[in-house]
């Protein structure tokens, strides 16, 4: 084949451009630390990266939801613990007053009235701006002072994973007025104490026990929910880690490999420059004469 001067210079130019382009690509990979810097670098991988990133955003959101639900469950647990203590106190007063008919009625009446007041307050507990025992009626105080329930049987639902929901108890009437109406029992006890009706006082002891059982049941349920939430939380964390790893292995460049590639490319570019300098220089004119 006849090789002409412009063929040689064109080839040299093309090679230099190609090497320089590859060098620039490697440089970009090294600077960004990413193998995929635009969709065309790896169209399939790019689609995957988008999917992983979406999944990670969702998992982060689920984690936030779970934290929220855990806080709420803890809040309910603490409140119901207090409620149970109040019930025990009320029962103790009933037992105490029923046994010794004459003992210090006035003090007992004041105490039980206080207990009732606290009970109403606790049943109207607010977390943030929301009444937690009001069902869906979260902006209305669920219990009036006479014990009327203004809430409904709504619940609080948490999204814990794709298409998975968990429901947390929010129905105050079930807790305070289920099988036994604790407000009514307290009212009856106060009436019994005021009217010195020992039978009436005595008959409230069983009701308080019943009410306490009812609260214990709800506490057990919410304890189980809490454990469940913790479990899902751990799973979410694990999933998050897995997806982060998958995303890195798809998107990230392996640093050692990149550095070696870059050095090789740099060498190739220098060689091309060297060759260009040698090829372009000599002509027959250097050797004539």
């Amino acid at each position, binding site marked *: 084949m*006849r*090789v*002409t*001067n*412009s*063929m040689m210079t*064109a080839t040299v130019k*093309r090679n230099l451009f190609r090497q320089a382009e590859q060098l620039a690509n490697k440089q970009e990979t090294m600077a960004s630390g*990413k193998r*995929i*810097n*635009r*969709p*065309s*670098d*790896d*169209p*399939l991988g*790019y*689609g*995957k*990266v*988008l*999917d992983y*990133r*979406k999944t990670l*955003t*969702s998992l*982060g*959101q*689920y984690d*936030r*939801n779970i934290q*929220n*639900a855990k806080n709420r469950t803890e809040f309910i647990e603490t409140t119901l613990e207090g409620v149970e203590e109040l019930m025990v106190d009320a029962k103790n007063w009933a037992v105490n007053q029923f046994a010794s008919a004459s003992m210090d009625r006035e003090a007992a009446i004041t105490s039980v009235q206080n207990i009732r007041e606290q009970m109403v307050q606790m049943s109207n507990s607010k977390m*943030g*701006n*929301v009444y937690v025992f*009001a*069902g*869906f*009626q*979260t*902006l*209305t105080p669920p219990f009036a002072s006479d014990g009327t329930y203004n809430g*409904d049987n*709504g619940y*609080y*639902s*948490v*999204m814990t994973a*794709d*298409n998975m*929901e968990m429901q947390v108890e*929010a129905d105050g009437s079930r807790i305070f007025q289920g099988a036994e109406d604790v407000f009514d029992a307290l009212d009856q006890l106060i009436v019994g104490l005021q009217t010195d009706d020992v039978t009436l006082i005595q008959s409230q002891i069983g009701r308080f026990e019943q009410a306490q059982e009812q609260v214990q049941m709800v506490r057990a349920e919410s304890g189980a929910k809490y454990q469940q939430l913790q479990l899902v939380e751990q799973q979410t964390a694990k999933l998050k880690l897995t997806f982060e790893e998958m995303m890195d292995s798809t*998107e990230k460049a392996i640093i050692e490999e990149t550095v070696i590639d870059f050095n090789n490319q740099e060498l190739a570019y220098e060689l091309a420059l060297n060759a260009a300098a040698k090829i372009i220089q000599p*002509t*027959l*004119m250097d050797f*004539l004469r």
Partner: protein
Amino acid sequence: MPDIYGILSTATRSLLTQQKAIDVTGQNIANVNTPGYSRQRVVMEPSAPINFQPGQMGTGVKAAEIQRIYDGFIGGQINGENAKLGQWEATESGLERIELIFNESSGVGLEQAMGEFWSAWQDLVNNPSGYPERTALLSRSETLARTFNTMSENLQQIQLDYDRTIAGTLDEINGLSRQIVDLNDKISQVEIAGQNSNDYRDQREQLLKELSGLIETNTYENDQGQVTVLTGGGHPLVQSPHAYTLSTVTNAGGLQDVVWMDRSGTAVDITTRIGGGELKGWLDVRDGYAQDYLDQLDALAGSIMTEVNAIHQSGFGMTNDPLTGTPVTGQDFFAGTTAATMTVDAAIVLDVNRIAAAATAATVPGDNRNAVAMANLQGQLTMNGASTTFDNYYSALASGVGNDVRNASANHEYEDAMVTHLENYRESVSGVSLDEEMINLVKFQHAYDAAAKLITTVDDMLNTVLNMV
């Protein structure tokens, strides 16, 4: 007559012929870097002999013609590949611009905006009556709508940019056609006189190559050396002595269609019949790729709006309807029809409490069931005839763009290699090699020196004869 003076005239012819050869060598050296130049050579042949005893005597050399060295078939091949090269080069550069719109590797883009939109609904699930959650949801929704708007606008901007480029390219094509007609004239005039029109032919070939980079052409040459150039659908650009013009008309979409004007000025639309060249690449980007991505974006935005609105309408907000006094329902969440026109409904922008988180009117402040249904939309098969989710539809679109760019750049590279290969072949036939020209120069110079020596010898001989007298 083969006498002593005959030797002198042989020497003269030789001097003149070698001088011509040196002249042409000089022309070659001068054009070593001229694109499209074909090397030339003087065809030497012995001049007519004279009958004599004991046999015919030669009379020296003559320069028969100045020939251009080229391969008649390679030009057409180069032009064919050059049209494809131009096409893919234009397609690749257009797609690379589009790719930027879909490039989310830094983490900012539509996928992220969608993710945050659905997350904001989940935050509302956590606190359905919360004002901050509602405001955050509104701002996320506005971001989502704006992202759709921007992407759509950017794609349309690219369409408009290429639209202008197309009109500019047509001017270039028309200019080239006219120049080719001029050269056709010159070539036929020179060749009718029996000469080789070497340099004009080189020029014309160069113009034909330039033209083929812009638009696919078919060329053939008649017996007077004039070429006819045909393009899309067999419409001629050049048919000596006429050059035809390409022009534009505005189509229904407000973009320019390419038309060919016949000699009476009637326009024929050839937009879809252009087979190659940069023009084809730009038309493909404008009417094919960009339009296709726009359509898909519109489908995605449209579907999101329809699905979200359907769920939102069935839910209940916290604000009471002034007419009925009950919580508002039947409220749209998004307004608009396409990616470009998508906005959050004006009523919701004014009052975030119109966002419907509750499933029934009676359960209003604390009920999050409608918000749950909304958040669950993210994972539902809502696109492509209930076969894929919003997110997957978009990631498929983005990786589709990546694939198209890859494909275009692979085609570009392939055509580049093809054209390079063919040009190397052309160059190896027609290109000027300085080494070769130097050798020729030395060769012709030696012949010139020897011919001069012959004259000196004849001079000596004549002196000898004269001194005899």
